């Protein structure tokens, strides 16, 4: 007889494989509910955030003209130079229309009561807005906008000053009649943070207020409307070349679509999206668990299939197909959940956004989210699926083959890294490396930034190692405890017996606890910093725009009230050159340091080193010693970014005048002191020829806040009083809004963690059932069994809670201390709430997953055996 040759055949076709995968799934659909839910929740979180982000982007692009109120905007912090003016005027010949907008903060008051309020004042002229809707109540009030004796105000201002439409309002040196309430202003971007309600007046009215003096803090915007055929981008490019150097101007075309706003929002959604990503990864752990439990149930089926001729490759294909189908189904459910979440986010973020976000049905975020879910499911399922190769068909003959071994890495409970290096171990190492690398690549793809991605991966890996390691340590500790009570003994034993999913459950719930507690602790620390931790010597008011000729009167005003006042001269400056290299010649686009070169610095002149400052290099100039050449002292971090040290030279543009100064010292500044601190301080005499205003800080008892504000505004109408408490409250309100969004996302992570827990408990349902029944036959009441389960779930939850809260505390400390440079507090109440909440939720989830066991009649179960 001719010997037969065994060659690997093509095997069954895709149709048969699909049929087999479907047959394997249909009978176990309930088993896979956890799989589906884990993926759906993770994908939902991702699609919710990315879809919202896409909707936001879409809305901003669509509304870009209205958000600018023009086609091109030239933005400066001082009036245009003559050359600049000429440049803009010359555009009229090309059919370009122009309108001027000035924005500043100022004080407004009720002339009858003397009540005062900080306002965001905006002055406009004919033509504004070129695009978008300016709406008022009554409607006709818009028409009075160019009248120099009228003003439009936001409702909030009327309420705060006790005014009504047609009342008079005092601004600076003039009084205006309120003709209407502003209900919509197209180009008010600062939705997230505002210092006060809007007051909209004409440019002529602004001139009458006399608020704008040399050195005043005003933002000038020249809005241009272009004729058909002239491209906004081209004109903006043309203007950028001629303006940046001369006027320190920022030129934007509408189709840049608010790059600053978009960058802020994109950063926000990226960070919020990271939490969604954690939810998906925890979901992945749930998938791995679910597949592993399924495979364990299917050991006999796998052995039978191998007996009747299925090779591992065919089996792997069948179960991979099954995973892919389930992954796709879970992802699809996740996309629907994400769409629902997208509907929630605009309301939660309403106070943070300048526009009403349209719901986006953009395919890309949905497809991307679904792909993330699909691939995450696949990668997490791969490791348990690879165990198929090690299922021995001989198990059908010899039952002594360990039931656990094939699905936990081959050699029972020996970890992969402790095994000898045979061929099968090497292939497991390669598989593990492949899965980890692919997961990391997937995360980087979703995050879209190598830097953020690397930090995220690093923190995540460390956190998982800490959580996993601690979970194992606790299990080892529990094993050593030998309680006498049956309930305790059984409950604790459930945690470490063979096949226990305790470590996975602790890890998954722990990740959720870590995220939510970290978010809450960081938010609480920030709020505490804002509300409770004001330094005792912190001033209660900043006064800005005090003119040179008002400074003596200002000092006398406070001296008469026995209040110490500190006046600091200031000017606004931009870095023009570092050494010989001009900033305009530097390639700064996208550089992390760019901000330090392009920002406007508020600079001062000081003869003595301000309080809270420390010299770290060089030396402070001696008191009264005016240097022949200007000297500067630079804050050390800024110096690092600018690349200067003691002896370097810096050239500043001070409102058109160039001043070159030598760096005499570097300073460390305590920014938390909330006093006037500066990046750059000039030596006495260096800025004698520069128009400088002054700012003042005053500390007033809270009860005298209002009276003081009124008196100052009455005496110095052009001076703006900024109440620190109010500013901090405004920041606090923004943080609260942000916190809501972040917490919502964090709950997705917690939810997924609990799902993984429920899944892990459900996989041991049959063992629990058997044990419960045996205990019942031996005389245990239902109460005893409930207590045994409660001990087990309580320990799981408390362990996850303690480890998660501790890790959250550590992460919060690192973020607050090293990155935000803020003090960290233990937040014991919140940490305890984390531990308590985790314990309670775990017990609840555990009982939900097992309550049916309690009612089972012993005989029925024993008969089945």
């Amino acid at each position, binding site marked *: 007889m001719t010997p*037969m040759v065994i060659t690997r055949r093509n095997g069954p076709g895709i149709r048969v494989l699909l*049929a*087999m995968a479907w047959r394997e799934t249909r009978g176990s659909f309930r088993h896979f509910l956890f799989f589906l839910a884990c993926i759906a929740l993770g994908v939902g979180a991702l699609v919710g955030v990315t879809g919202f982000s896409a909707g936001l982007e879409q809305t901003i692009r669509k509304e870009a003209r209205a958000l600018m109120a023009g086609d091109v905007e030239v933005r400066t912090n001082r009036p245009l130079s003559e050359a600049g003016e000429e440049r803009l005027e010359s555009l009229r010949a090309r059919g370009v229309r122009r309108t001027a907008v000035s924005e500043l903060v100022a004080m407004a008051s009720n002339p009858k009561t003397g009540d005062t309020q900080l306002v965001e004042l905006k002055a406009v002229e004919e033509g504004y807005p070129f695009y978008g809707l300016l709406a008022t109540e009554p409607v006709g009030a818009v028409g009075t906008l160019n009248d120099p004796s009228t003003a439009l105000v936001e409702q909030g201002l009327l309420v705060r000053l006790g005014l009504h439409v047609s009342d008079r309002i005092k601004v600076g040196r003039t009084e205006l009649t309120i003709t209407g309430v502003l209900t919509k202003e197209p180009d008010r971007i600062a939705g997230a943070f505002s210092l006060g309600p809007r007051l909209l007046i004409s440019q002529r009215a602004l001139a009458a207020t006399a608020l704008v003096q040399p050195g005043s803090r005003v933002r000038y915007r020249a809005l241009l409307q272009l004729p058909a055929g002239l491209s906004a981008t081209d004109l903006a490019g043309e203007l950028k070349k001629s303006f940046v150097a001369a006027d320190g101007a920022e030129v934007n075309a509408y189709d840049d679509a608010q790059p600053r706003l978009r960058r802020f929002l994109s950063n926000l959604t990226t960070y919020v999206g990271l939490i969604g990503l954690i939810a998906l990864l925890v979901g992945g752990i749930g998938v791995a668990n679910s597949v592993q439990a399924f495979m364990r149930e299917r050991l006999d089926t796998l052995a039978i299939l191998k007996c*009747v*001729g299925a090779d591992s490759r065919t089996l792997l294909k069948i179960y991979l197909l099954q995973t892919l189908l389930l992954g796709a189904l879970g992802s699809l459910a996740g996309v629907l959940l994400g769409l629902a979440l997208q509907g929630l986010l605009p309301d939660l973020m309403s106070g943070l956004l300048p526009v009403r976000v349209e719901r986006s049905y953009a395919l890309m975020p949905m497809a991307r989210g679904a792909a993330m879910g699909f691939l995450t499911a696949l990668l997490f399922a791969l490791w348990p699926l690879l165990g198929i190769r090690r299922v021995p068909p001989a198990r059908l003959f010899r039952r002594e083959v360990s039931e656990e071994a094939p699905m936990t890495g081959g050699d029972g409970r020996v970890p992969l890294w402790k095994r000898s290096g045979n061929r099968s171990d090497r292939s497991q190492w390669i598989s593990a490396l492949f899965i980890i690398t692919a997961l990391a690549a997937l995360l980087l793809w979703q995050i879209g930034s190598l830097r953020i991605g690397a930090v995220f991966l690093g923190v995540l890996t460390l956190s998982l190692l800490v959580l996993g390691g601690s979970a194992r340590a606790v299990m080892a500790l529990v094993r050593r405890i030998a309680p006498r009570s049956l309930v305790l003994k059984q409950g604790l034993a459930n945690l470490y017996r063979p096949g226990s999913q305790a470590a996975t459950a602790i890890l998954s719930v722990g990740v959720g606890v870590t995220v939510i507690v970290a978010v809450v602790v960081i938010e609480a620390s920030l709020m505490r910093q804002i509300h409770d931790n004001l330094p005792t010597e912190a001033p209660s008011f900043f006064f800005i725009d005090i003119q040179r000729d008002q400074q003596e009167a200002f000092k006398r005003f406070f001296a008469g009230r026995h209040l110490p006042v500190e006046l600091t001269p200031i000017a606004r400056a931009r870095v023009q050159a570092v050494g010989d290299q001009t900033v305009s010649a530097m390639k700064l686009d996208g550089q992390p340091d760019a901000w330090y070169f392009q920002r406007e610095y508020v600079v001062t002149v000081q003869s003595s080193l301000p309080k809270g400052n420390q010299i770290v290099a060089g030396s402070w100039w001696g008191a009264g010693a005016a240097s022949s050449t200007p000297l500067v002292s630079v804050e050390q971090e800024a110096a690092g970014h600018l690349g200067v040290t003691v002896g370097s030279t810096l050239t500043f543009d001070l409102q058109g005048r160039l001043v070159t100064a030598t760096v005499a010292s570097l300073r460390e500044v305590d920014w938390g002191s909330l006093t006037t601190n500066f990046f750059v301080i000039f030596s006495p005499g260096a800025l004698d020829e520069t128009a400088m205003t002054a700012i003042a800080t005053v500390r007033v008892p809270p009860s005298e806040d209002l009276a003081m504000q009124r008196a100052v505004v009455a005496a110095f109408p052009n001076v703006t009083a900024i109440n620190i408490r109010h500013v901090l409250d405004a920041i606090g309100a923004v943080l609260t809004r942000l916190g809501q969004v972040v917490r919502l996302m964090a709950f997705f992570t917690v939810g997924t963690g609990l799902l993984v827990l429920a899944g892990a408990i459900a996989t041991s349902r049959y063992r629990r059932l058997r044990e419960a029944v045996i205990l019942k036959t031996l005389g245990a009441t239902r109460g005893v069994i409930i207590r045994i389960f409660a001990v087990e779930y309580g320990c799981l939850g408390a362990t996850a809670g303690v480890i998660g809260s501790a890790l959250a505390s550590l992460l919060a400390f690192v973020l607050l201390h090293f990155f935000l440079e803020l003090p960290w507090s233990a937040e014991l109440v919140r940490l305890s709430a984390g531990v308590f909440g985790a314990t309670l939720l775990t017990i609840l989830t555990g009982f939900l997953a097992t309550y049916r066991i309690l009612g089972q009649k012993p005989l029925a179960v024993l008969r089945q055996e």
Partner: protein
Amino acid sequence: MIKVRKLSMRLTGGGRMVTILDAIDLDVPPGQFVAVIGPSGSGKSTLLGLIAGLDRPTSGSVELNGINLNGLSEDELAVMRGRVVGIVFQAYHLIPTLTALENVMVPLELTGDRDAEARGREWLKAVGLDERARHYPAQLSGGEQQRVAIARAFACRPPILLADEPTGNLDQTTGRLVIDLLMRIRKEQGTTMVLVTHDADLASWADRVITLVDGRIARDQQGTPAP
């Protein structure tokens, strides 16, 4: 043709080495029906498992239709079983989540047979269960489950059939029916069969009876098959 040479199997249990099979030599010519009998623990099932390539021997070799199993990888062994060997177990080992028909179709589908369903139905008819095609194993009696298992074992018309106590879980009457069926199909197909049993009556049906004691062939008896 089955050729077994110096086949030994030793396992470590409780810290000591236990010899399950000790240097077995055996030749089974094509079409022969061999019964393997012996007391519990004599190594009968292990011998059957090694012939099926379900496990690796400690030493020695098994050759089926000219293929030396020692040279095959696990996956090649699986492919070989699909083509060369059909197995019937004492505990039936049907896949609980598949219907009777689907259980029979599995080996056919694995070989890429496009008519798996039609052939599966034919085999169910052959074992008298065409009415029960859509039933799951849990809905079938023990005898019916074993008949489905027999249909599955013969589905790909393997030249060799290995049966491990096929009536061990059945009452006498049902067991008799199952054996009749097994014999009938074996004859029709001309299949070589090795059957492991405790049942001397059942063994008397075989062309040849091998008695294993302590992992060795104590007796190799060529007999006249029972009618």
